[in-house]
């Protein structure tokens, strides 16, 4: 694939990568977030502090981790501990960004990765929370990376595995979740979305290259708020793609 062309995963990785500032802590889950974190370290954020659920803190992501507890998640790390040390670090307020995924998302950013249908008689049994609920409860800002279609972006998820803004403004705090936390961005191959500061409903911030606002709306199963100015998310740069292909994922596990 040439530097001008890129595949959907490459787009997601580059878009997510740019959301990670230097000298910040980020709770990194399996898949796209690992590639995004590795790319970020090699681009604009050499001191991004990657934190992995099962104990790695501050690893240098020279080689791409393929799973959340494998040796690359604590390669030349500053600390290698265990899951509770990590999640308690998040619970104590030290982790700024967290990455999430799911089968369904609603306008308030609530995520479902547990069941389609009724919990006790599910149509589809999904894997369950994993670390998702922990990340969504404790990290200051969570970023969901999703496939974008109207069966996934729906008015009401079948099961709130991981809390977004729950029923809306104030609901997280009422439930006892830490104040000032919650969903921050949703990244898809069609768009980048945020949340309205008052209503806490999902809001279109930017479209991905070549995607129209109409396409985004069409593929979203609920009313999407619109930012005053909808930006065009810039495509992956030649430099990003080069590093991604030649350094981050040399073995093409994901791209």
């Amino acid at each position, binding site marked *: 694939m040439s530097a001008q062309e890129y595949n959907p995963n490459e787009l997601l990785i580059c878009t997510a990568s740019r959301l990670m500032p230097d000298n910040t802590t980020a709770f990194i889950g399996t898949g796209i977030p690992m590639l995004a974190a590795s790319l970020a370290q090699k681009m604009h954020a050499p001191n991004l502090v990657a934190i992995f659920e099962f104990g790695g803190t501050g690893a240098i992501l020279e080689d791409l981790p393929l799973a959340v507890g494998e040796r690359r998640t604590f390669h030349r790390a500053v600390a290698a501990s265990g899951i509770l040390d990590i999640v308690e670090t998040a619970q104590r307020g030290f982790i700024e960004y967290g990455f999430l995924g799911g089968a369904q998302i609603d306008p308030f950013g609530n995520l479902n990765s547990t069941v389609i249908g009724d919990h006790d008689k599910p149509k589809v049994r*999904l894997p369950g929370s994993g*670390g998702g609920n922990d990340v969504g409860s404790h990290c200051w800002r969570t970023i969901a990376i999703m496939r974008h279609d109207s069966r996934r972006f729906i008015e009401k998820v079948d099961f709130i595995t991981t809390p977004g803004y729950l029923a809306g403004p104030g609901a997280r705090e009422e439930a006892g979740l830490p104040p000032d936390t919650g969903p921050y961005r949703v990244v898809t191959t069609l768009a980048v979305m945020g949340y309205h500061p008052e209503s806490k409903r999902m809001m279109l911030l930017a479209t991905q290259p070549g995607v129209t606002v109409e396409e985004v709306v069409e593929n979203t199963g609920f009313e999407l708020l619109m930012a005053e100015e909808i930006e065009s998310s810039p495509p992956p740069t030649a430099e990003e793609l080069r590093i991604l292909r030649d350094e981050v994922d040399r073995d093409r596990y994901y791209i």
Partner: protein
Amino acid sequence: MKVLQEGVGPLIQPPDLNAFRSWNREKPKAMIDKRMTEAEAIDQFIQDGDYIGTELYGTVRCPQSLVNEIVRQGKKDLRVAGQGVYELDILLGAQVVKALDITYIGMEVYGVSNCLRREVESGRVETCVEWSNAGIAWRFKAAAMGVPFLPVRSMLGSDTLRYSSAKVIECPFTGDLMCLLPALILDVGLIHVHRADKYGNAQIDGITGFSAELARASKRLIVSAEEIVPTEEIRANPEKTIIPYYLVDAVVEAPFGSHPGEMCYIYERDEDQIKEWIEASKTEETTRAYLEKYIFGVRDHAAYRQLVGEKRLADLKAMVPGR
């Protein structure tokens, strides 16, 4: 203590910390040679219907040779605490699981677990009680501390809590709402480590996941180890011991015990066999064939290693880079 909300999930294993104390008091404190085979350990320490748990992350450091033996011996109606990938999938594929305290069972980048879907959607797994990853680990931690619950801020506001057996209360110091997680005491815990002595003193290299917590939350604990080392090696580095011997009931020497999963610094994951399982797990028939080939068709873990092949195992070792 006023409870503001409680999950509808049943307590699959009740947190009786006083009974746990009495049990722990009776465990032998003598240094006894506890080495045995997978077959002996599973036969002696796991009963049908037991509540069991495995410690691992993804496919890393799985007590796979022990899990294979559970299936081989036809243990059934197990209640299981799960965060798991391949090893819980094998138990589900073998249809020996009746109830789950579940946080995550899936194939990571390969997606959902076909076996979990079949077993839960068919109702063969009768009960799924939901938790987060840390939620389960904290439940082990509560048992390890010897207290019946721990307060946390995970799970609040979610259906994960609603379908758990957690409770929500108001903190009597601050007024903050807290999710109380009940202690989880395992009948049998299974842990694979880098090295152990014959008494059960066990050490792990790299991150330690929730091994300390699960080991201390288990009434019976089976440790498998890549290598059995002299006790003097343990005593030379006591800081590295994560499981002291008195917690342990059986020590099983299991080189490549985590295969097809990996063991950091020793061997890498066998991606080909994982993919073979992903394919096989798609139907009950191919699942049975896979289990036949890798579990029922081999006598023990040594025969399993032979089946996988010396060359392939050597290759997995060779893939490990310097530290």
